[in-house]
């Protein structure tokens, strides 16, 4: 038994215990403890800095060997996975779980689904060959389906859509693996790696299309982005946080395995897209850039806080892939680091939104407002989150996004840089809409009695917010993990310091930056209080807009048709082209299905017998 076995066993034990005792009230807390134990066991494996840790379990089927091992990359993703499981289980463990039960759902099913997700992801991350990678991939897909479907109703429909996408992707991956198998006669990483160089460019393109396309589905890369927002948003609260934080990143993990570890950035750069001046690497980078822009601007249109954040999740995945495609030390570190910073950010943001849903019963941005007076701590969590999501200092998200921008500029990719900035602009606009419509403006009468989120939900939120801030100020320790991952992937490791990165052409030191920021605030405060600090507290209904006093029945609330002017400008750009594409595919399947049905309804079956007999006889004598 190796330390990896212990980890997976405890994870499996968590699943079993949730199955057995999930009905009991203590189950939530038990899950929290068990995730904490898993976290400690992961730390003990030492896979980050030392040698890869192998599992003692091996299987062989059809002469195909399967084994599992953890290296630095696995460790990094597993750390985020278990951490997300820990915080989400904590969020669910108290009041949330009781409410969930009262609403007629099964907390046991939820805890089981969450534990199954963590377990299957740990299995996927440990895959030591392509077959175990595929098996882990399928397990993760179905575990996510379970977590998405437990909500019922609209969640079920969204989960089904996800399933069709994910399973089609899975089949494409299997087809790609079989292509590899026919060419190399093996599915073992080392052996495949040594023979991959002999594949022709055409075969590698096919591989990219089949396997890369399949992995891209889970990440929601264009053009496979349509399923994700609804599926993640409709999942019950903590489940949604978990999926948003890490689930889509399994796609990134697998893409890293394919693009960076197996094919290598060099090979991608050498492959020309026929009839263009682009290489395969540019193509993927542009797909990533478009994945940043399009979903982010779709998010801007959303009226539901959960959907707004879930659409962002797709866009942020684009930054990660973009950074990795730049491929230099800072860029790939930025992409990897964004997995972590975005994970904690999105988890905190969705928790805050679901805390609001918990208290008010709605996530509709047109039906909220002014809650800052009622839920100040939740407001603070959301504020920290959106600053980080938008990539502004001093939060964690700034560091990772800055590194991606920095690498794009340094490597001479100005157009991609502009694309990334356009995406960030959309993020800033939409997160402002988010915080404004929930917390600012006037409180609605029906929310007069709303209280702060319950402590059991607030604590994990505050914990994550602290983490977001701390990682923002001192990114050094987290960057040391990223550097180890880069080293294990064969990428140049990023030269990190406690406060950021060292670079002769302009590094980053968050300690300085935050210091200056705080000093600025300090100066402002000095001036304000030096001048007497005059302020006057008024009732929220006592205000005016556009020179008119507003009475209690005419409210200050811009939330409906937010950004009307902007939408007037960019509104016609939303064409729904991908929806059209999806519908066309569905219609094709429906048409084929109707044709096949027609065949089986045809009333002259004897004719078929004769026709086939004649055809076969003709074939044999020909």
């Amino acid at each position: 038994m190796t330390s990896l076995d212990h980890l997976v066993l405890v994870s499996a034990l968590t699943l079993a215990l949730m199955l057995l005792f999930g009905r009991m009230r203590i189950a939530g807390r038990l899950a929290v403890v068990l995730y904490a134990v898993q976290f400690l066991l992961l730390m003990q494996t030492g896979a980050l800095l030392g040698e890869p840790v192998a599992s003692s379990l091996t299987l062989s089927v059809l002469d195909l060997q399967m084994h599992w091992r953890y290296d630095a990359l696995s460790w990094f993703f597993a750390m985020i996975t278990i951490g997300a499981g820990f915080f989400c289980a904590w969020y669910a463990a108290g009041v949330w779980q009781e409410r969930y039960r009262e609403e007629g759902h099964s907390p046991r099913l939820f805890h089981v689904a969450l534990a199954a997700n963590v377990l299957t992801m740990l299995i996927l991350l440990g895959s030591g060959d392509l077959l175990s990678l595929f098996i882990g991939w399928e397990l993760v897909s179905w575990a996510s389906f379970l977590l998405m479907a437990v909500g019922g109703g609209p969640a079920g429909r969204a989960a089904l859509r996800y399933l069709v996408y994910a399973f089609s992707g899975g089949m494409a991956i299997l087809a790609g693996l079989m292509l590899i198998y026919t060419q190399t006669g093996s599915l073992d990483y080392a052996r495949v790696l040594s023979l991959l160089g002999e594949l022709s460019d055409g075969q590698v393109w096919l591989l990219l299309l089949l396997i890369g396309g399949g992995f891209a589905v889970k990440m929601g890369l264009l053009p496979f982005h349509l399923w994700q927002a609804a599926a993640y948003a409709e999942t019950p609260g903590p489940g949604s946080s978990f999926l948003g934080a890490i689930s889509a990143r399994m796609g990134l993990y697998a893409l890293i395995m394919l693009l960076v570890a197996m094919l290598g950035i060099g090979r991608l750069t050498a492959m020309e897209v026929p009839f263009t001046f682009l290489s395969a690497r540019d193509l993927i980078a542009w797909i990533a850039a478009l994945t940043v822009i399009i979903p982010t601007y779709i998010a801007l249109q959303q009226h539901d806080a959960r959907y707004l954040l879930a659409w962002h999740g797709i866009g942020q995945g684009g930054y990660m892939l973009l950074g990795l495609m730049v491929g230099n030390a800072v860029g790939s570190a930025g992409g990897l680091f964004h997995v972590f910073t975005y994970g904690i950010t999105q988890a905190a943001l969705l928790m805050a939104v679901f805390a609001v849903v918990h208290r008010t019963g709605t996530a509709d941005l047109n039906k909220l407002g002014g809650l800052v007076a009622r839920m100040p701590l939740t407001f603070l969590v959301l504020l920290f989150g959106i600053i980080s999501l938008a990539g502004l200092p001093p939060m964690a998200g700034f560091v990772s996004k800055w590194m991606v921008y920095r690498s794009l500029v340094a490597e001479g990719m100005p157009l991609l840089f502009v694309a990334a900035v356009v995406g960030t602009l959309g993020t800033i606009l939409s997160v402002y809409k988010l915080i404004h419509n929930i917390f600012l403006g006037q409180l609605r009468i029906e929310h007069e009695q709303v209280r702060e989120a319950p402590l059991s939900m607030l604590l994990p939120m505050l914990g994550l917010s602290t983490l977001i801030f701390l990682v923002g100020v001192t990114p050094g320790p987290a960057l040391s993990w990223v550097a180890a991952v880069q080293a294990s992937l064969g990428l140049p490791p990023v030269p990190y310091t406690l406060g950021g990165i060292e670079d002769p052409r302009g590094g980053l030191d968050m300690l300085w930056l935050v210091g200056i920021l705080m000093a600025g605030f300090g100066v402002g405060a000095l001036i304000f209080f030096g001048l007497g600090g005059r302020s006057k507290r008024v009732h929220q209904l006592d205000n005016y807009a556009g020179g008119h006093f507003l009475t209690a029945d005419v409210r200050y609330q811009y939330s409906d048709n937010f950004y009307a002017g902007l939408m007037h400008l960019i509104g016609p750009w939303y064409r729904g082209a991908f929806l059209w594409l999806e519908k066309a595919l569905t219609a094709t399947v429906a048409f084929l299905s109707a044709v096949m049905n027609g065949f089986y309804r045809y009333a002259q079956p004897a004719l078929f017998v004769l026709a086939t007999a004649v055809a076969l006889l003709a074939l044999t004598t020909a």
Partner: protein
Amino acid sequence: MISDLAVPNLFVAQAGQLVLPVVLPLLAAFLMQPLARVSTALARGLGPLVLILCAWITAQLWIQLGDAPFTLAIGGFAPPLGILFYADGIALLFALAVPVFALLFWPGSESGGGAGADSRPGSDQADRDQAARRDALVLLLVAATTGLALSGDLFNLYVFYELAAVASFGLVALSGTGRAQVATFRYLMISAFGSVLALAGIAILYMQTGTLNLGQLAQLAPETLNNPIGSAAFALMLIGFGVKAELFPVNTWVPEVYAGAPARVSALLAGLVSKLAVLVIVRLLVLIFPQPEAAQMLLVLGVLGVLTGEFAAWRAKDFPRMLAFSSIGQLGIVFVAFSIGGEIGLLAGLAVALHHLIVKSALFGLAVRWNGSLEALAGAARTSPLGAALFVLFALSLVGVPPLPGFWAKLTVIVGLAERGTPLDITALMSILLVTAVEASYLFRVAIRLYQDNPDPVARHARRDLGVSALLGAVLVAATLGLRPVADVLGAGAAQLGDRAGYIETVFPSHVAGKD
């Protein structure tokens, strides 16, 4: 030469019991009607009793005689003159599966076996007659399908095949509804045409070789049948035997029959009878027609079956019809697998076939209650949580989700296809992967619907049907846990099934002994 079998007497005595699983149900079927006049209880008990006996005898034989194949010359006339039974691991496995599955899906009277078995209120006497007829038909089906598994002679195979056809017509038409009768008539038409073609194929074989003994045919095939005439004969027999094996395009009877017949009968036809017909085709393919054209026919028709079946299922409106289309698709995969040939092809084919036997039978077991439209299934998980959970389990295994057995079966097929790697194989591989996505879509549409909220869900399952499905589900889970031993057993079976020389040697041991 006739009495000169180089085996001890004890062995002959035991091997002689091999006829019992065929003869006993046949005898019981004929006794059923007169017995029902005398005592209803006795008649009712006779069928299950005989089946248990058959299963016990077969199991006993398998345990005592081990894995080595053996033959039994009926009446002591040695081959090629007499007719003989040939029993290897796979034959015994199927011979065991027949009574077991017939017992599991025995059309009981207490809950009304599905669509309309109890829909016609009549006098007690009429009901009893009906029950006796039904029981007799099932026993007839059991005898015929066991015969299919064991026969080592093409003439016998044809006879048993026809017997199975007659029994299944009767069973399908039993419910007496107009829909069932129309479906049966169509089934009858296709079957009849198919039989004529199969007979023509057999006639060609006899013309070419002068024998119908499979062992002797296998000996003579390389010289006499490895030519267009031989391929033509195979094509004709493929179409003929393909009718019951749900081979495209002679499977157009399938959806209507399964939708109209009592669900338990559908379970037997889709699960058991189709697999025995497949076994016959595989025996022909392995022993007599090793030429690539034969395998290619199977591959092309299999792919077409996969595509048409699974796509058609996507639009199916009611539960049994969906299962029927899915069954066509799965059998298409079975054909594709067997067309690969070699040990891996046979292993893949056996794995998919046995997996489908278990899963589809169990799903039709659930269809006893869920026999209506898919829409009506909304919220069924509330009344029948175990049934819904089992449906999800079977659906997962059908689409091939690791680590369930369905995944390994499908993976074996796919690896087999990839290893051979001709363009046709790659097309087949891609088709299978494509329709698997379609399959997941329609199966899980139903799964989601089962768990929807619905104030007025369908009635719960009868305890017996649920028990049978749960048992088969448990078998599936057990196979998942014991993947290695199951794979070893199947691998050994596949090796034996593909061992042409071994077959000849078993049928004509003196032939080899004479050479020494």
